[in-house]
């Protein structure tokens, strides 16, 4: 299926139009059980092995809300500076689609548990942009459909579909922004920075791992354009399930260019959902949006209202962790790194790892050096995230301690890290097994130094006559003789001492 879509150039689009965005992010909570029943949320289980009368919507079953689900929603609301409802209800969102066996999704409609907040996001150049939050509400995930008989597993042309309801009922928090205005040409960047910051926040709260690649966090990008100088919003499109930070930015950019081309040629934008295509960053038309009234929302009679006590809310507020952006700025100062370096550390997913390594006793410079150097390279080569490497912050801290104590030099330390990554054990075990100790036995070192001096008499003479810089060649010879296991600084000291020169 080839559809050619006219796109305006990004610059032309922005010269004529002002983009307005609305971002809807769904976060799957990391609870042990589903939102309204005790079925496990564990991933990777056999199809339909985690269902019960409640999440299958069988007659006579009665849902009861998960206390941790509600608590997580309140925490997210508080961290987003929202007001927390004194009293709110669940609502049924009715629709015909087999991904929910109940024929409705339990959600919240006009009484979200959290509303009216904001999240400050920092762009790459340090500019802070405030994104206003409309609401955060509780709902549940849907089942997983597999379409059979179509060309590429797509719904078009499928003869039938197969449903696995293990995911149906897993707690979701939907976080909706107010219209994001005034971002101008930086709109796609703001969208990406917002989702990135929200992800950090969710992780810091400990309510979800928020791994976008696993669908634990998904973003819908609403976008419209209006001519510069006008107030009324244009018709929006809603690009669904954009599942990486880079894709959020690309989807916003693409829609700006597509809308501009349609509007500039006198056309109108259809209010519809769009599918995002990872391969080329384009979007294609989905379905025409139902109006909210078509979902025939009504208060869920089987679940009683949630009325978070003020004392409880204040208790949760007190327990909130330092917000990620505030924490990053604090750590940046403590570590003495630039904005730009901190951004790289964040992008590499190394903030928590470096902080943990420092907590285990490493100095900031060494912790950063290993995670952003050797380990980042290793992660990159194996196509994994840094925190998926087979090494812990405490093991990295141990390596830096060995280096600081003079037991290892950098070259040996790299071999120790290599050993740990290959599963040979913790750093001390690798040192032991591979025999990687720096030669600190003075007898052995002195012998190696004597040999080097004897073998390089001409250089030794130069040093004796005061050319201290020439000592490098002798140090090199000793290092070679000890297969890199000597402490280079100590070797130099010994050489100068032997030749009667002060360093």
């Amino acid at each position, binding site marked *: 299926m080839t559809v050619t879509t006219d796109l305006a150039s990004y610059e032309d689009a922005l010269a004529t139009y002002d983009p307005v965005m609305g971002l809807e992010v769904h976060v799957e909570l990391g609870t042990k059980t589903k939102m309204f029943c005790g*079925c496990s949320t564990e991933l990777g289980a056999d199809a339909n092995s985690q269902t019960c009368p409640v999440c299958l919507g069988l007659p006579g079953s009665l849902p009861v809300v998960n206390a941790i689900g509600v608590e997580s929603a309140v925490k997210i609301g508080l961290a987003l500076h929202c007001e927390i409802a004194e009293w709110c209800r669940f609502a049924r969102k009715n629709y015909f689609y087999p991904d929910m066996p109940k024929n409705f999704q339990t959600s919240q409609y006009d009484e979200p548990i959290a509303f009216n907040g904001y999240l400050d996001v920092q762009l790459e150049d340090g500019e802070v942009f405030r994104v206003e939050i409309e609401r955060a509400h509780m709902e549940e995930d849907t089942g997983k459909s597999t379409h059979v008989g179509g060309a590429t597993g797509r719904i078009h042309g499928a003869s039938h*579909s*197969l*449903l*696995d309801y293990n995911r149906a009922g897993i707690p979701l928090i939907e976080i909706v922004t107010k219209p994001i205005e005034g971002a101008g040409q930086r709109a796609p960047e703001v969208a990406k920075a917002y989702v990135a910051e929200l992800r950090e926040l969710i992780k810091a709260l400990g309510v979800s791992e928020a791994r976008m690649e696993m669908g634990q966090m998904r973003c819908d990008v609403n976008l419209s354009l209006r001519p510069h100088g006008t107030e009324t919003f244009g018709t929006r499109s809603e690009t669904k399930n954009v599942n990486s930070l880079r894709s959020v930015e690309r989807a916003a950019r693409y829609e700006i260019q597509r809308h501009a081309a349609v509007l500039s040629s006198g056309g109108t934008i259809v209010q519809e959902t769009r599918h995002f295509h990872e391969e080329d960053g384009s979007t294609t038309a989905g*379905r025409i949006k139902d109006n909210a009234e078509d979902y025939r929302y009504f208060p869920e009679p089987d*679940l009683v209202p949630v009325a978070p006590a003020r004392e409880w809310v204040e208790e949760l507020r007190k327990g909130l962790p330092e917000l990620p952006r505030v924490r990053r700025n604090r750590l940046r100062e403590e570590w003495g790194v630039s904005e730009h370096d901190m951004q790289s550390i964040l992008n590499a997913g190394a903030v928590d790892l470096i902080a943990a390594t420092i907590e285990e006793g490493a100095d900031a410079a060494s912790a950063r050096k290993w995670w952003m150097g050797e380990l980042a390279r290793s992660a990159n080569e194996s196509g994994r995230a840094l925190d998926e490497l087979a090494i812990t912050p405490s093991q990295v801290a141990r390596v830096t301690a060995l280096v600081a104590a003079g037991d290892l030099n950098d070259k040996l330390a790299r071999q120790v890290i290599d050993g740990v990554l290959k599963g040979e054990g913790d750093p001390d075990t690798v040192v032991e097994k591979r025999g990687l100790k720096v030669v600190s036995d003075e007898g052995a070192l002195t012998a190696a130094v004597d040999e080097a001096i004897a073998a390089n008499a001409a250089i030794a003479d130069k040093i004796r006559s005061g050319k201290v810089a020439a000592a490098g060649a002798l140090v090199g010879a000793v290092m070679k003789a000890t297969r890199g296991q000597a402490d280079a600084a100590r070797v130099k000291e010994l050489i100068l001492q032997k030749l009667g020169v002060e360093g």
Partner: protein
Amino acid sequence: MPGITREEVAHLARLARLELKGEELDHFAGQLDDIIGAVARVSEVADQDVPPTSHPLPLTNVMRADEVRPSLTPEQALSGAPAQEQQRFKVPQILGED
């Protein structure tokens, strides 16, 4: 008078995936009109100080601990399904909505 139109009935029928004939649309428009009219009488007696009731009992905050309870087996879960395949619920072609 609420005045339910034929078009509104057709729209509702589409949402409910019901296929209605022309005369049925007219028939149901009249009936729905009567029903809504009857229900609307409630608002005549409910004054401003009577909040709409969704839950008859004054209960709030009924919650359960986040503890796993046994699920049905896949066989049990699928036992009422008219059709199944690969341990999944088999449903007819989904209308070209997506």
